[in-house]
């Protein structure tokens, strides 16, 4: 499928109708979704929405920068009137009563929302195997996982269902599937994009961001989604201009850009092929005049441990709203307590219950000091590491995932080994910084991702570095 920029340009100038673009998307879904299980549902209004865009263009209206661009939503983002299950049984019959802020902003820019993507239940998982609706499959090898938790969104873009899909990233849930599926995935700075209408998982970590084939497309979608929202008090309206070098995103070159390479992300025992792909990518930056700076993030090795305390605590709290009383699956017991226990016990899947138990334990009386408070202090140390590093460099380059896409089922029975697949991504969420995965090569026919991280609100440096890299390489042009 064409890029979002090309589609919007064609639709706005009348070379193509939005309807023909959306029909192309729906045809791709029709022919491939049964195999890939990327989408849980197609929005019935998609064709009508596209025709409306065409009518408005015919009437001379400016419909926006995403005119006619088909976009897939993750199934934890509300689209009024559409089913929204978060990959869970507990919401198998739940229809969204209102639009999320991102839904409104994308539509206001002319985008056509075409369907909802499969995901690990409530966005907990690294493989999409925790979905109540079955795993999604990696288009590069359908016997392998696409990553997660936004696996269905990543597959939708990688398989050409749509040029853009949205994901949510709490500990790597956009970047890791982007890496495993060979596409671009961006987790913006905490506070950049409103989460109003996103089902809350871990409120101090969650961010919505785009999947795309090109960095330009991701940047275009971000320009529409970002910015303050009175419905999400954590969003930032005014961005400190000192964070973003002026005009950086217009500059395709990287001469003078300081690229930090953290030694803690390239350790003995890591996959040598992944290491080589990532270091080859760093060498491209050096050849173009970037300055490569060896850096250290000494607390990095504790990030995953801190994450798997903080994340389950917040998840256990946020998931308290699913009680079988007000909405969602309800299983009546003899008492109120029994109704809660049965509705949640039957409605939530195994991993969700595991995290609720874990989160409740580490925040319970007698344990919260040793676990939750300790992890929150370690979070400060992780943030300080990045603050120090960014005095010496502008972006940090690292692998996104410690492994290639693995066979479905391989890590499913061992929660800890599944958690370890987030080892390179959780730090950016804990430190609230923006981070992006871009394709940087293939090993045994499977994609490898380069992760770039930057200062808070300096997505501009990620766009600059990413656009440069895609201008000198062709990994992102290959399709499964």
């Amino acid at each position, binding site marked *: 499928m064409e890029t979002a920029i090309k589609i919007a340009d064609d639709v706005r100038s009348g070379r193509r109708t939005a309807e023909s673009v959306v029909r192309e998307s729906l045809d791709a879904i029709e022919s491939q979704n049964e195999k890939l299980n990327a989408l849980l549902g197609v929005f019935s209004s998609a064709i009508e929405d596209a025709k409306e865009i065409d009518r408005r263009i015919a009437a001379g209206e400016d419909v926006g920068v995403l005119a006619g661009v088909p976009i897939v939503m993750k199934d934890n983002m509300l689209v009024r009137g559409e089913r929204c299950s978060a990959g869970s049984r507990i919401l198998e019959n739940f229809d969204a*009563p209102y639009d999320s802020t991102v839904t409104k902003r994308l539509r206001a820019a002319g985008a056509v929302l075409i369907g909802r993507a499969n995901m690990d239940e409530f966005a907990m998982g690294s493989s999409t195997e925790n979905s109540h609706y079955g795993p999604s499959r990696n288009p590069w090898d359908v016997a392998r996982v696409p990553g997660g938790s936004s696996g269905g969104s990543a597959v939708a873009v990688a398989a050409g269902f749509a040029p853009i899909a949205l994901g949510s990233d709490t500990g790597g849930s956009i970047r890791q599937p982007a890496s495993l599926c060979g596409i671009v995935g961006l987790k913006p700075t905490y506070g950049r994009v409103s989460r109003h209408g996103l089902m809350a998982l871990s409120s101090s970590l969650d961010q919505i961001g785009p999947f795309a084939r090109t960095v330009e497309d991701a940047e275009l979608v971000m320009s529409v989604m970002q910015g303050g929202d009175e419905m999400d008090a954590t969003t930032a309206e005014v961005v400190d201009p000192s964070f973003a070098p002026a005009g950086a995103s217009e500059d395709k070159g990287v001469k003078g850009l300081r690229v930090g390479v953290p030694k803690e992300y390239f350790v003995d025992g890591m996959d040598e092929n992944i290491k080589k792909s990532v270091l080859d990518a760093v060498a491209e930056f050096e050849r173009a005049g970037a300055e490569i700076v060896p850096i250290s993030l000494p607390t990095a090795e504790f990030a995953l*441990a801190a994450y798997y305390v903080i994340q389950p605590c917040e998840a256990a709290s946020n998931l308290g709203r699913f009680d079988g009383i007000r909405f969602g699956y309800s299983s009546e017991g003899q008492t109120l307590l029994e*109704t809660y226990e049965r509705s949640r016990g039957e409605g939530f899947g195994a991993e969700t219950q595991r995290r609720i138990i874990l989160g409740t334990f*580490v925040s319970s009386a007698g344990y919260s000091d040793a676990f939750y408070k300790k992890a929150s202090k370690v979070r*400060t140390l992780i943030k300080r590491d990045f603050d120090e590093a960014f005095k010496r460099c502008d972006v940090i380059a690292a692998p996104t995932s410690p492994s290639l896409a693995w066979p479905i089922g391989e890590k499913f029975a061992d929660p800890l080994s599944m958690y370890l697949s987030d080892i390179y991504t959780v730090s950016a969420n804990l430190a609230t910084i923006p981070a992006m995965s871009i394709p940087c090569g293939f090993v045994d026919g499977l994609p490898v991702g380069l992760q770039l991280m930057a200062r808070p609100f300096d997505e501009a440096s990620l766009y600059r570095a990413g656009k440069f890299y895609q201008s000198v390489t062709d990994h992102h042009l290959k399709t499964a």
Partner: protein
Amino acid sequence: MISNEQITHIAKLARLRVEPENVAKTAAELESILGYVTKLQELDTEGVPELAHGDWLSNVFREDVAVGSDQDERSRVIEAFPHKEGDLLEVPAVFQDRTE
């Protein structure tokens, strides 16, 4: 060591039902994960403040005034109630032993 009683207690706090045959497995999984996260204790965090979110954030205040609700949204929320009487949400009795 996580005891079976601890699992049952935590499950009750979390309003989850862990079936008796799954208690030991749940304890083993919890222990494996706690074994990993215990490495946090190796770090000296004396005097280090806790970080809960983006450090530029501050409280956002607004006037506490009632605003009308969107009628379409309201009807969809009511439609989603598992049990209702008219427009009202029907809930199970909160108290187990009611004295007349």
